[in-house]
């Protein structure tokens, strides 16, 4: 199989990853803000170019990941970043390609690591594909948001945030969520940001 890298890779590992990173940082710092990484994702081939853009920006051989049984995506990420494949329980980055299966999402959200009280940064970043109609209003508050704000999100975003809340992780332990649409729209909801 010809990898995405050879077929149509024109993502610049220096400049495009810097741009994607700044957009990611903007999204994580301002959780209700949706940023677009489409321009950079379009430079990558395959079924999940936006995932690949995030992977190429953040991942290398020092971190582990899982694609939750999406083997082609896992192989692409390994070939592009040299990151290590790992189980859901131990992975640093968890890519959820098909969040429409709620049971699957529940299972993943239950398993992912949330760090420890001493080392809360040793927690998973869960990156969820987020396609669908953003028809559900979601009231968010927390660091990065001035008071409260309401954003329109898909049902899966609400589900993922609710599932995270159900884990009852004691802060600073927690899971950081990043939602990416196939069109490259990216929304981040760090652990301290929640509904309400």
């Amino acid at each position, binding site marked *: 199989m010809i990898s995405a890298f050879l077929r149509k890779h024109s993502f610049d*590992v*220096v*400049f495009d*990853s*810097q*741009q994607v*990173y*700044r957009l*990611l*940082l*903007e999204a*994580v*710092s*301002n959780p209700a803000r949706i940023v677009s990484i489409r321009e950079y994702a379009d430079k990558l081939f395959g079924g999940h170019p936006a995932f690949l853009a995030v992977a190429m*920006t*953040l*991942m*290398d051989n*020092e*971190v582990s990941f899982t694609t939750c049984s999406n083997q082609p995506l896992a192989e692409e990420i390994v070939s592009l970043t040299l990151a290590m494949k790992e189980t859901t329980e131990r992975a640093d980055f968890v890519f959820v390609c098909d969040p429409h299966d709620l049971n699957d999402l529940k299972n993943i959200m239950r398993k992912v690591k949330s760090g*420890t*009280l*001493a080392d*809360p*940064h040793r*927690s998973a*970043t869960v990156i969820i594909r987020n396609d669908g109609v953003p028809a559900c209003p979601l009231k968010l508050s927390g*660091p*990065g*948001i*001035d*008071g409260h704000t309401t954003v329109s999100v898909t049902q899966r975003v609400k589900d993922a945030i609710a599932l995270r809340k159900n884990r009852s992780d004691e*802060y*600073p332990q*927690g899971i*950081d969520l990043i939602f990416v649409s196939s069109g490259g729209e990216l929304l981040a909801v*760090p*652990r*301290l940001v929640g509904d309400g």
Partner: protein
Amino acid sequence: MNSNYNFAFLDEGSKKEIRRAVLKAVSIPGYQVPFGSRELPIGRGWGTGGIQLTLSLIGRDDILKVIDQGSDESVNAVNIKKFVGLCTDVRTTTDTREATLIQTRHRIPERALTNGQILIFQVPLPEPLRVVEAREEVTKKMHAEKDYASMWLQLYESLVKYNKVTIGAEYPCMVEGRYMMNPSPIPKFDNPKLHKAECLYLFGAGREKKIYAIPPYTQVVSLAFDDVPFEKENFVGKRCRLCGSADTYLDEIFDRQTGGRAYQCSDTSHCQWTADS
């Protein structure tokens, strides 16, 4: 730009590690994320934490400002600007308003920063508990357990001995009610600017290998007792000798020949702007 080096000097693996640490730091405001601090052609203790943050963030469209104790023209600021310019070719500025990235040593600009701007602090000692506990493994545990009693006790002892809290710069604060944080050696005057700011604050300690952050609109409260409120430096009755400002942080200038004392703004960019307008 010197083409013998990668864009922004650091190799891409180093940038990725720093970038991951920054994202975790923003997600856990006030928590010190460890990172593998890289060697730079500058000695540790000269702002290498801040420089590594700047180098891992900077892109070709950025406009960089570097200040040292508020000044755009001091040795540290000028040389950091030269170094970053040498390996990126980005535009530099002294105007706080147009800068996208501002690296600072020990001051927060007088002009309130906006949401798109990032202020990067050079931090010599990131651990606020180091004054009461020398061992890293113990301070780490204290943070994990939110055990800050010894720090409160130190503040109380200071009150008992001197009738006031005697900490000058590096006045500790609580971030989102969870982490005690060292805001780097900024004067107490700047501490209130950390609270619910529009911009993103990033802190880099190169020697101590720690990165931490305060995202926009985050609650940052300087330590104080209910009956002894936090007090910042007082410049009542004093004005900048150059621009006349009475609401800025002032440096005291001593004239050896006349024995006279004068005051002028520590933030040179703001002082110039005020004098010109």
